[in-house]
C-alpha cells in the first residue's frame, strides 16, 4: 500500500521525476563505469607486471631482493623444488631463472640490460615471454647461444634476427664474463621499457656463462588468476629453511600496490563527489514534491497519521526514486562496459604518455560486483540520509499550518 502510493506520487509530476531519475542514472552510471575503468587499468597493470617475470610469488635466497647479484643466487635449487612439490598448489606453474644485470653490445651500440636465463618450456606457462616472440624462433631447452631480444632494443641496436649480440656480466667468481649470442627471436611486450630491459637466454647458457653450476637466482610461481598468493607463500615459508625468502607480487611490486591503493581511494572519492553533485538535486526535487503536497500531509495528519508515518512515506518515495535511477544507471554501465569490453579503449594515440605512466595501451573496463555494490550502496544510503531533511520538513506540518497555506 505504502509502496503503491509512493509509486503513484512519483508519477504525479512525471517530467520532474524523469529529470531527477536521469540525474541519478547518469551519476550511478559514471560511478560504476569509471570505477570499472579504474579497476580495469589496475587489473591489467597487475596482470602485465605478473606476466613480466614477477609471477604470483617468488622464492629467493635471502638478500637477493636488496642486492640482486650473482653472489646471492641459490646454489642448489633442489630444496625449494622439493618444497614446491610438497606444498599443495592446484594449477600452479613454476619456473627457475637466472637474472643478472648485464651489458649488451654489438659493434656500434651498447646498453645495460637484465639478462634472464630461462627454462623455455616451463617459462612459457609462467610469464609473457612464451607467447611474445613475433620474429624468428623461441629458445630451445638448453639453447647454448640463442638469445631473445625485445623489438625496441633491436631497433636502437640496428640489428636483426641472426646477428650477434655480446653479453657481459659479472660471473660468480667476480670476474667479467662475456659470451656472444645469436639473436634467435624478437619479442614484443606491453611496455617498450620491457622490450628494452630484458634479454632472454636459456638457463643452461646463463649458468655456464656465469659459472653458476646448478645455481638459480629465483623461482617464480604463477597461481591461477585470482588466487590469493598469501597462503601459498606461508606454506612455502614453513616448508623451507630461513635461508630462503618468499615474496608475493604485492611485496615485489610495492609501487604497483601503492598505485592500486591510490586508485581505490580515488574511486571512493569519486563516488562521494558524484553523490554530492546528485544530492543537491535529490534534496531539491524532494523538497519541491513535499511543499506541493503540504495540504495533503496536513490532511494525513488530521486523519491520524503520526509524524513518523509521514517521514516513512517520504523516505519510501525517495528510496523508490533512487532505486529506479540506480537500476537505470546500472543497466547503462553494464551496457557500456559490454559494448567497450570487446575492443577496449585504445590509447595508442597517447602511446608515449601511456608508456610514461606505465599504463596499458588498451584499457578494458573490469566490472566487479563489489565495486558496483559499493557505488549503489553509497547512492542509496546517502540518498536516504539526505532525504531525511525534506521528510522531516513534511513531518513538521500540523493540520492547521497546512490549511493556512494556500
Amino acid at each position: 500500500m505504502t509502496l503503491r502510493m509512493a509509486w503513484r506520487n512519483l508519477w504525479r509530476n512525471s517530467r520532474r521525476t524523469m529529470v531527477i531519475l536521469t540525474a541519478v542514472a547518469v551519476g550511478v552510471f559514471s560511478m560504476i563505469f569509471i570505477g570499472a575503468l579504474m579497476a580495469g587499468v589496475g587489473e591489467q597493470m597487475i596482470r602485465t607486471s605478473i606476466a613480466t617475470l614477477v609471477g604470483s610469488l617468488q622464492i629467493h635466497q635471502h638478500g637477493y631482493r636488496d642486492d640482486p647479484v650473482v653472489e646471492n643466487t641459490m646454489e642448489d635449487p633442489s630444496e625449494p623444488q622439493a618444497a614446491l612439490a610438497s606444498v599443495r598448489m592446484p594449477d600452479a606453474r613454476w619456473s627457475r631463472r637466472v637474472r643478472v644485470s648485464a651489458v649488451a653490445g654489438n659493434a656500434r651500440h651498447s646498453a645495460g640490460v637484465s639478462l634472464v636465463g630461462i627454462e623455455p618450456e616451463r617459462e612459457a606457462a609462467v610469464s609473457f615471454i612464451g607467447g611474445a616472440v613475433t620474429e624468428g624462433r623461441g629458445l630451445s631447452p638448453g639453447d647454448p647461444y640463442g638469445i631473445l631480444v625485445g623489438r625496441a632494443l633491436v631497433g636502437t641496436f640496428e640489428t636483426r634476427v641472426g646477428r650477434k649480440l655480446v653479453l657481459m656480466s659479472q660471473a660468480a667468481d667476480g670476474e667479467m664474463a662475456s659470451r656472444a649470442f645469436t639473436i634467435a627471436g624478437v619479442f614484443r611486450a606491453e611496455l617498450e621499457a620491457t622490450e628494452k630491459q630484458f634479454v632472454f637466454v636459456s638457463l643452461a647458457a646463463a649458468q655456464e656463462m656465469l659459472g653458476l653450476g646448478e645455481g638459480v637466482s629465483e623461482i617464480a610461481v604463477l597461481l591461477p588468476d585470482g588466487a590469493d598468493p598469501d597462503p601459498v607463500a606461508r606454506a612455502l615459508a614453513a616448508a623451507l629453511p630461513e635461508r630462503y625468502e618468499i615474496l608475493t607480487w604485492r611485496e615485489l611490486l610495492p609501487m604497483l600496490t601503492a598505485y592500486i591503493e591510490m586508485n581505490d581511494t580515488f574511486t571512493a572519492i569519486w563516488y562521494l563527489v558524484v553523490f554530492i553533485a546528485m544530492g543537491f538535486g535529490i534534496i531539491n526535487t524532494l523538497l519541491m514534491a513535499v511543499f506541493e503536497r503540504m495540504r495533503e500531509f496536513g490532511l494525513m495528519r488530521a486523519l491520524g497519521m503520526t509524524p513518523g508515518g509521514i517521514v516513512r512515506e517520504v523516505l519510501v518515495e525517495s528510496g523508490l526514486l533512487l532505486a529506479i535511477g540506480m537500476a537505470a544507471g546500472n543497466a547503462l554501465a553494464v551496457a557500456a562496459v559490454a559494448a567497450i569490453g570487446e575492443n577496449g579503449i585504445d590509447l595508442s594515440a597517447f602511446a608515449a604518455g601511456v608508456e610514461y605512466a606505465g599504463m596499458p595501451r588498451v584499457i578494458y573496463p573490469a566490472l566487479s560486483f563489489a565495486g558496483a555494490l559499493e557505488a549503489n550502496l553509497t547512492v542509496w544510503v546517502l540518498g536516504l540520509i539526505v532525504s531525511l531533511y525534506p521528510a522531516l520538513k513534511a513531518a513538521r506540518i500540523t493540520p492547521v499550518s497546512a490549511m493556512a497555506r494556500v
Partner: protein
Amino acid sequence: MHLRMAWRNVWRNRRRSLLTMAAIAFACALLVFMLSFQFGAYEAMINTAVKVHTGYFQVQAPGYQEKREVRRVVENPAAVVRCLDTIPDVTAHTFRANAFSLASSEDRTYGISVTGIDPAREPGVSTIQTLVREGMFLEPGDGPAALVGALLARNLRVGVGDDVTLLGQGRDGSIAATVVTVKGTFSSGQDDFDRSALYIPLDYFQELYAMRGAVHEVVGVTPSIWAVPAVERRLAMDLERLSREKKTQPLAVLDWKALMPGLAQGIYLDLVSGLIFYLMLIIVVAFSIMNTFLMAIFERTREFGVLMAMGTTTGRLTRLLLTESMMMTLMGMAAGMLLGSAVTLYFEAVGIDFGSAADILRQYGISGRMHPVLTAPSLLIGPLLVCFITFWAALWPALRVRRLNPVEAMTHV
C-alpha cells in the same frame, strides 16, 4: 526592470535557489581545486623534468635523440652559443656529452650513462647541484672526479672518496677507460635516474671519449616553458643559416616536449581523462539544475499567461527565464570560485601529504608534499565549463514557454 524582475524571481523560492546555487558552487569549487591540483602537479613534473634532466630545449646533432650514439655530435658548440647569445629569452645554457659505459667498483659492475657536464655552467641550467646528498658537486678544474646517483653508489657499494672504473667507447671507436673518484652522490627521488646516472667534468669527458672538442647537447633555459616555441623557431632559423654557410646538415632544436615525449603526452592524457570525469560530474549537476528551472517555470505558468496577455512575447519570456538561471549560475559560480580559491590557496601554502602514494609521485618528479597552484586558467576553465553546460540545461525549460498559449497558461493551476 527585467533584471530587477529576474533578480526577485530568483529569491522567490529561497531554499530552492540556494540549493541550486550550492550545487553549482560545489561543482565550480571542486573543478577549481582539481584543475589547480592537476596544473600544480604538471608544473612540478615539468619543472623537475626540465630542471633535472633536459633543460627547456636542446640543440643536438640530427638523430641523436633517437639513437644516442657517441659519434652524433655537435661539432662546433661555440657557434651554437653565438646564436644563443643573440636571443634575449635564452637565460642560460651549457654543454653536455653522454656515453654509455660500464661502471665497476671493486666487486660490482653496471652498465650506466656517463654524462660530462660543465661544472661552472651546469648550476645555471639544472638543479643537480642542489640534489647532492653526500660530498660535493663538481668544480671547474676537477679531473677524474664523479658525481654519482645515490642508488648507483649503493649498488656499486661505493661512497665519497672511493674509486669507480669506467669503461666505454670513444667517439672514434677507441676504448675509453679510466678510474674516477667519487666526489659526491646525488638523489633526485626518481629511482631510474638515481640508479643509472654518473657525472664527470666535461673537459675530462671530452678527453676520455676522444670528443675533439665536440659535445652532444647544448642545453638552454628560457624564463618559462611558454617562451620556448619562439626561441625554438628563431634558433632553428639561425642554425639553418649556419648550416648553409658551412654546407652541413642543420642541427636539430628540440623542446622539452620532444626531449620527453612521454611526459608531454602523459600530461595530455591525464588532462583529457580529467576533463571526461569533470564533464560527467557537470552533467549530473546540470540535470539537478534543469529540474529546478523546470519546476520554477511550471509553477509560474499562470503568471506567464498574464504576462503574455499583456503583450509580452514568448521570446521576451525566454530571455527573462534565461536571465534568472544565469543569475543563479553566476552567483553559484562566484561562490564556487571563491570557495575553490580559498581551499586551493590554503593547500597551495600548506601542501597535501600523499602518505604512501608519495613514493609513486616521486617517480614522476613530484617530491614531498604536493602543492596545487591557483592560476587564471585553473580558476576559470572549470566555472566556464559549468556555466556553458548550465546554460544549455536552462535553455530547454526556458524554450518550453514558447509552446505556451496564454489561455491555457491562465487556466493552469
